């Protein structure tokens, strides 16, 4: 019996995944938010819009999984928003309305994303530049290049690509399946691969990891590459719901700071070494539920920002408190 398949290990894995108290906690909060918001919505005669909520989570959720990797490693990626834009525009241009172009365009864009991620990683590890500054720099570079070349919708997305955005499989939208697949893959990588173990180590203490033979540079480059690939997938998802890509889709969605917010909301420590994608998933869902609730209850969207700010701070404060109590 393989190492994964045995039932005992399934239980152990489940307990490991949810037993980390902070992850369990945030799921508790998720349930609470769900109950409260849905009750309020139903009480005021609105629609729960579960599917809608999930679909809204997809774009942020996919890139937040990637951001989780980067933050776990003790790094940060502020350039994801513009990476999403770059993907959207380039893919749209490459596809150029022709369904025959879809597959190789997707591959090309993923390769481009991976390259950008690798470059981010290299700048940070080889030149020893702080991740904040390095990714701020690349986001500016991408922004400039993008806006200098395109100032409007560009390219054309063939209709055949739209199922990703709109169709369902057994009642579940493809996009949601994609998100779930990415979350599952991310979880699996972190828990079961050496890369995942090393990523946690590098985030907790790069020095210790390196002295133990971990190639911290490679690990971080890998994390940034994964993050960029998820940004790419988000870009692809976005254009599957549009007829063409545009340079503003990334910054409009605020994916940089929002993905970081979702990650820390989910219990991953900003300093690295602690947390995981399951928590991030819960964080994304909470934000999406709040979004939906505010819309349905017709509360001013600006107030939503205030509430989000409060929630993020409160969540991280609670995590910090637990951490102080647990580890001496």
């Amino acid at each position, binding site marked *: 019996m393989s190492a994964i398949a045995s039932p005992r290990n399934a239980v152990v894995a489940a307990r490991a995944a949810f037993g980390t108290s902070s992850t369990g906690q945030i799921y508790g909060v998720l349930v609470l938010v769900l109950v409260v918001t849905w009750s309020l919505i139903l009480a005021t005669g609105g629609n729960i819009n579960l599917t809608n909520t999930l679909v809204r989570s997809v774009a942020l959720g996919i890139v937040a999984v990637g951001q989780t990797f980067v933050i776990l490693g003790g790094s940060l990626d502020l350039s994801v928003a513009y990476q999403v834009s770059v993907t959207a525009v380039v893919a749209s241009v490459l596809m150029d309305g022709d369904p025959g172009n879809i597959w190789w365009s997707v591959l090309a864009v993923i390769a481009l994303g991976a390259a950008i991620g690798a470059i981010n990683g290299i700048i940070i590890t080889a030149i020893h530049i702080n991740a904040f500054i390095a990714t701020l720099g690349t986001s500016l570079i991408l922004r400039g290049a993008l806006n200098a070349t395109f100032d409007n919708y560009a390219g054309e997305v063939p209709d055949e690509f739209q199922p990703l955005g709109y169709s369902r499989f057994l009642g579940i939208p493809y996009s949601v399946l994609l998100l779930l697949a990415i979350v599952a893959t991310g979880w699996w990588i972190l828990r*079961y*691969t*050496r890369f995942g173990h090393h990523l*946690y180590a590098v985030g907790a203490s790069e020095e210790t*990891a390196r*002295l133990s*033979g971990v190639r911290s540079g490679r690990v971080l480059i890998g994390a940034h590459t994964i993050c960029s690939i998820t940004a790419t997938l988000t870009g692809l998802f976005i254009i599957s719901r549009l007829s063409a890509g545009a340079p503003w889709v990334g910054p409009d969605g605020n994916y940089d700071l929002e993905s970081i917010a979702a990650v820390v909301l989910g219990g991953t420590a900003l300093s690295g070494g*602690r947390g995981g994608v399951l928590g991030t998933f819960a964080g994304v869902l909470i934000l999406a539920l709040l979004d939906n609730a505010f819309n349905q209850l017709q509360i001013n969207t600006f107030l939503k920002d205030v509430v989000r700010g409060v929630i993020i701070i409160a969540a991280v404060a609670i995590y910090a408190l637990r951490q102080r109590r647990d580890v001496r």
Partner: protein
Amino acid sequence: MRGVRDGMTDPTTSQTAGAVGLDSDRPILRLSRINKGFPGVKALTDVDLEIRVGEVHALMGENGAGKSTLMKIVAGVYQPDSGTITLDGEPVHFAHPREAQERGISIIHQEFNLLPERTVAQNIFLGREPKRGWIVDSREMERRTSEILTALGVERSISPRAMVGRLSVAQQQTVEIAKALSFDARIVVMDEPTASLSPAEVDALFSRIRALQERGIAFIYISHRIDEVMALSQRITVLKDGRNVGTVTTADTTASQLVSMMVGRELSSYYPPYASPEEIGEPVLEIVDGGNERLRDIDLTVRRGEVVGIAGLEGAGRTELARAIFGVDPFTTGTMRLEGDTVHFTHPRQAIRAGIGFLTEDRKVEGLVLPQSIRDNNLLAWRSIGRSGRLRNLPPPDPADQARRVDLRAAGFDQEVRFLSGGNQQKVVLMKWLSTGARLFIFDEPTRGIDVGAKAGIHELIRELARAGAAILMISSELPEVIGMSDRIVVMRNGTIAGELPRESTETEIMALAAGEADVKVAS
């Protein structure tokens, strides 16, 4: 002046050095004419070193002598500027510690390299997690970890799944040792491994080392503890100022010979004289019935001119006592009086204003701001405590005079303290407290990680501070230091005071109190 007593050899070891079976003098590792320099300092000059199969080879020398640098070269952390390293007869070059590890050379650093948020098993197998296909085999990892922990005798107290951050310091040390042992290493470098171990744990470590020696594993043992080195090693190499001044056979040498090799002169004694009765004045610190979460029933008095030594095993509560006095983890019961005034500190600032100085165990982490200059570190406390009350008449610190007083060696007052040696760093910390006009000094392991020459200097300083009218509380795990320095010895155990002993008590008497009668296997 009193002499070094030979009775300081570890009495728990009846084995004489050299009795371990070695059937060959075959060298396994040879370093030849190693040179290493850093900007501003030449760390190693033409150092030769030879390590034989299955020997425990001790490395001694002052801080700054180059021991740490040399060992980092052996372990692949640094690369030499010139010279050769030969392993099993063939030249090797380690560009990275991993290469050294793969060739069988492991190093256990003085500061642990553990990840608090990962489990014991994950820490031990970091970087070499066992795999089945693409997947990390956690079960196998934990099984192998259990094996090693059992072999070390700690399977009951440490589980492979335990989070390292929740283990005690001594347990973390054990995990570090387990990690090195898990590498099937042929040479294990240990840098001050027993700094935080109890005598029982030291025994276990020594037995383990001897057992591994019989399998042909060699140890390079860096330590300042002469008694341990004499008990454990077969040969000793002494470094001084970056050079190898000699390798001796342990059985053929004495403690004082070693010391003179390290500092280059015959030192007939280590310790300054005790305080005479006239020199001891009124109480400066009085604690009655003090207690908090970790301490209870603390009754303690320290007088002007007196050095009170605090002895005890790891975990007995000595540092906790210091922190309670200083306001870090304050007392919740009882009373504390400072020169007659009842005080209760909840913040170090208050304690500092009242005239207490605390030299912590780990000066680099808690005592100094490493990127800042000597001057800024010196003035750090003085700048933070304001000018009101008692401090109104405090004269501004004179760095030059203080530096002379403590015999500080540095290139300039604007030099960043991270470039100083351990002993000089400790002196800067002391200068910081001198600047605040402290009248009660708490020293926590004042000479840990400091070479013999500088140690004596610190001891002199402590005694001189007392003579100038300060009250001194000195926590130390080095029994010779406790015995040599203390006018009175207070022994702690389990968070309370187990007893008080007069000066010049024996190690046996102190250990009996510290460990509780039942645990002592000491031959008296």
